[in-house]
């Protein structure tokens, strides 16, 4: 090691080796595809529709991975927070250098990765203004590190700021493209690049100040806001009576730890994004429709993201191990799982309550609902008797899907096996990616077939879908039988009741919402798909996974 820079670079490489290899692998794979697939195939419509999102998805993934590698923090036991590595403070290096080196390395690595993507994959200049994006990317990394280090003691606030920062940086990145809609001097690239660079320098300054203060023993962990929040929460009416049962106590524990996260994020999204945007665009009828769709999808996306952490025994810890405190509770494994499921259900209900409340205020009061009313009118004409039932069932279905996002991974997270968690995540990303890849490779053939024999293609797709769904249902039921074999009959009965009720709801939705002229005879597909909606086998596996984690 000849200099602090190389030493630091080596350390970061060692820690993030696997993630770096994965990120480079994504880029390499797409570069290979780009090189291998011949030109005329790429130009076809289907190919463009498939390869674009595929490459986009993998690029975003690789950039996320590289950001994760440069999440240069360490847990400091004395302060009990995750911040700038405390042990580096003892090195004979000035603070400004100590802060600059990881930032430089991070920016260099991310820019190199971005360059690789631009030069090797997006060779047909699909990305407009690549330099602008490079600048925004670098600036985002610098501000990301600044937020990580300066808000080290404030875990929840840090998460919120990072989320907001991510969203606002996406908006900033898209700013020059609005120059058509808003002819404003702020939307020109030439003006914005220096501004963004200036903000990056500002972020560096903030990080330097914060780390310097932490080095000299500062860095308060108890801010006045936090103290105020604690005093407020102390004043709130708390339950002072004893818990009715161990299950009740465990539910309280789970709710306190994880319950308010989803509703909080949903409320924040509503207040910070949907509220202002709906006000700004209140005279645009088309925007209303678009925003409504996004609003309904938001809890699902939030639940998907939060679910990755929720499935672990302790949401806020880095790994999925059980603490001795939890493992020595005299509570059966099933009760742990049930308390998590109940907490998730209450979270989901609260989040959806906020969303519905916002809709109830927004749509009548200040939205331009001309397009929406037209659509709704047409809908009521097509389904004169059942439109209300369809609406209610749809909302219920969305809520159930949100709950499923939180809970269906419990059998992975509670098992405590990191390899299983990584494998399932890879599968979740890899399966759609490889499907898209296959579609892209055969795009010429698919285009030709669709043009020449549309009916046969349709019939083939319907029958293929039917077979796949039937196989999936059979696999699910088989797995469920094995998974629930170890669980007490009483609990199995209760959960089966719940499962049947929810599945019937989905089936009813499918039946009611199917178009009256069933040209393609896809009704059976609805039923099969409804059977797959509610998690059954995975929930049954969860107590077994927890037992494996608890008794190693």
């Amino acid at each position, binding site marked *: 090691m000849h200099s602090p820079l190389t030493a630091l670079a080596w350390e970061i490489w060692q820690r993030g080796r696997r993630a770096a290899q994965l990120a480079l692998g994504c880029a390499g794979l797409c570069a290979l595809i780009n090189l291998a697939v011949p030109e005329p195939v790429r130009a076809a419509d289907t190919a463009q529709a498939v390869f674009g999102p595929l490459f986009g998805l993998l690029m975003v993934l690789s950039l996320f991975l590289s950001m994760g590698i440069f999440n240069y923090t360490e847990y400091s036991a004395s302060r009990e927070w995750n911040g700038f590595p405390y042990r580096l403070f003892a090195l004979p290096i000035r603070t400004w250098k100590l802060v600059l080196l990881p930032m430089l390395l991070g920016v260099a690595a991310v820019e190199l990765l971005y360059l690789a993507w631009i030069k090797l994959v997006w060779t047909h200049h699909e990305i407009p203004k690549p330099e602008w994006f490079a600048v925004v990317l670098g600036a985002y990394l610098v501000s990301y590190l600044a937020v990580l280090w300066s808000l080290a003691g404030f875990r929840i606030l840090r998460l919120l700021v990072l989320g907001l920062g991510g969203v606002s940086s996406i908006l900033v990145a898209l700013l020059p493209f609005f120059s058509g809609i808003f002819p404003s001097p702020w939307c020109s690239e030439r003006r914005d690049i220096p501004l963004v660079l200036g903000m990056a320098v500002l972020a560096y300054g903030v990080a330097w100040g914060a780390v310097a203060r932490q080095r000299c023993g500062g860095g308060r962990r108890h801010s006045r806001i936090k103290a105020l929040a604690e005093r407020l929460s*102390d004043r709130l009416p708390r339950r*002072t009576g004893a818990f009715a049962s161990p299950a009740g*106590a465990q539910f309280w524990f789970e709710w306190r730890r994880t319950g308010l996260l989803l509703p909080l994020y949903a409320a924040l999204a509503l207040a910070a994004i949907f509220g202002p945007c709906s006000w700004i665009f209140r005279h645009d009828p088309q925007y209303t429709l678009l925003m409504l769709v996004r609003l309904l999808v938001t809890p699902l996306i939030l639940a998907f993201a939060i679910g990755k952490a929720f499935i672990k025994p302790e949401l806020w810890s880095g790994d999925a191990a059980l603490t*001795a*405190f939890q*493992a020595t509770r*005299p509570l059966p494994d099933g009760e742990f799982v049930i308390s998590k499921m109940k907490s998730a259900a209450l979270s989901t209900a609260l989040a959806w309550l906020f969303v519905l409340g916002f809709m109830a205020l927004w749509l009548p009061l200040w939205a331009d609902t001309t397009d929406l009313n037209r659509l709704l009118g047409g809908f009521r004409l097509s389904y004169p008797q059942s439109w209300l039932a369809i609406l209610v069932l749809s909302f219920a279905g969305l809520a159930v899907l949100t709950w499923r996002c939180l809970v269906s991974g419990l059998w992975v997270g509670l098992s405590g096996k990191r390899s299983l968690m990584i494998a399932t995540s890879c599968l979740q990303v890899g399966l759609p990616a490889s499907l898209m890849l296959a579609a892209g490779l055969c795009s010429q053939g698919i285009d030709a077939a669709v043009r020449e024999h549309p009916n046969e293609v349709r019939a083939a797709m319907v029958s293929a879908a039917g077979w796949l769904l039937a196989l999936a249902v059979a696999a699910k039921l088989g797995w469920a039988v094995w998974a629930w074999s170890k669980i007490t009959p009483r609990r199995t009965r209760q959960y089966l009741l719940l499962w049947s009720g929810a599945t019937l709801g989905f089936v009813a939705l499918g039946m009611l919402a199917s178009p009256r002229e069933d040209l393609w005879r896809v009704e059976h597909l609805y039923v099969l798909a409804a059977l797959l909606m509610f998690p059954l086998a995975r929930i049954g596996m969860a107590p077994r996974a927890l037992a494996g984690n608890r*008794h190693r």
Partner: protein
Amino acid sequence: MNFPSPSSAESVISITGLTRRFGPKTALNDVSLYVPPGGVFGLVGENGAGKTTLIKHLLGLFRAETGEVRVFGLDPVAEPVAVLGGIGYLSEQPDLPGWMRVDELLRYTQAFYPNWDPAYAEQLRVQFGLNPTQRISTLSKGQRAKAGLLAAQAHRPKLLLLDEPSSGLDPMVRRDILEAVIRTVADEGRTVFFSSHLLEEIERVSDQVAMLHQGQIVLCGPLDEIKARHRRYTLHFEKAQVKSPAIAGALRISGSGKEWTVVCNGAGINLPPLAAGLGARIVGEQIPSLNEIFEAHAGAALPGQPAAPLS
């Protein structure tokens, strides 16, 4: 070495032939232990000897790879609720959730144990000086240990399991822990299983002692017997010895010049003739403290291998 082996029905803890490996390292090697009800059982051993691993087997946190573990006659892995409901556990670093307040911790823990005595818990809380509205993350290390001890004791468990509870704590907190031990065992039928580095504490409160060395039990039995069995002799040689004298069967030999100290298991060797053979006379014979016995065994080789005297 003969270990007492009452039937499983009598023992509170019954471990038979337990072996546990972590990769290439053997943490426990054919360990057998029986703890009778109504006493204090002390477990000593150097760092890495396997004490924590043993205690985790009792709590069901580890499955027994080979051998059998029974607590109250039940398997902790097969019936965790029944076993854990009768155990009060305090570990070296009690990982109590930092976000809870003290009163919330007590209310939460109370729900799991039907024998919880609220009046007793309150009395202990006042005695320990814990503020009920304080968050656990703001408590000092000693206060956290006291909070853990409170949660472990208040339901008057049949078995109090302490895993090096006093490490790093000041004497006042250590005294509180020992008082908890005494109070537990003074109630008829309740047992304490106590592992510690601080041998003075073990010596004060234990009825029976076992010593783990590199995953094996090298000593086990009532404390008085163990102490009575061992002897510390001081030998005075006529000629100054350059290197340590070779005395077969001695556990530990230390000293220099003419004066040498030998710690040995009195039943194992008969020192006077050996000493006379080497040209020394015995000038002192005492009962060694548990500390010295422990050091002697920790430095010595395992039974079955030749002794390697330290000089």
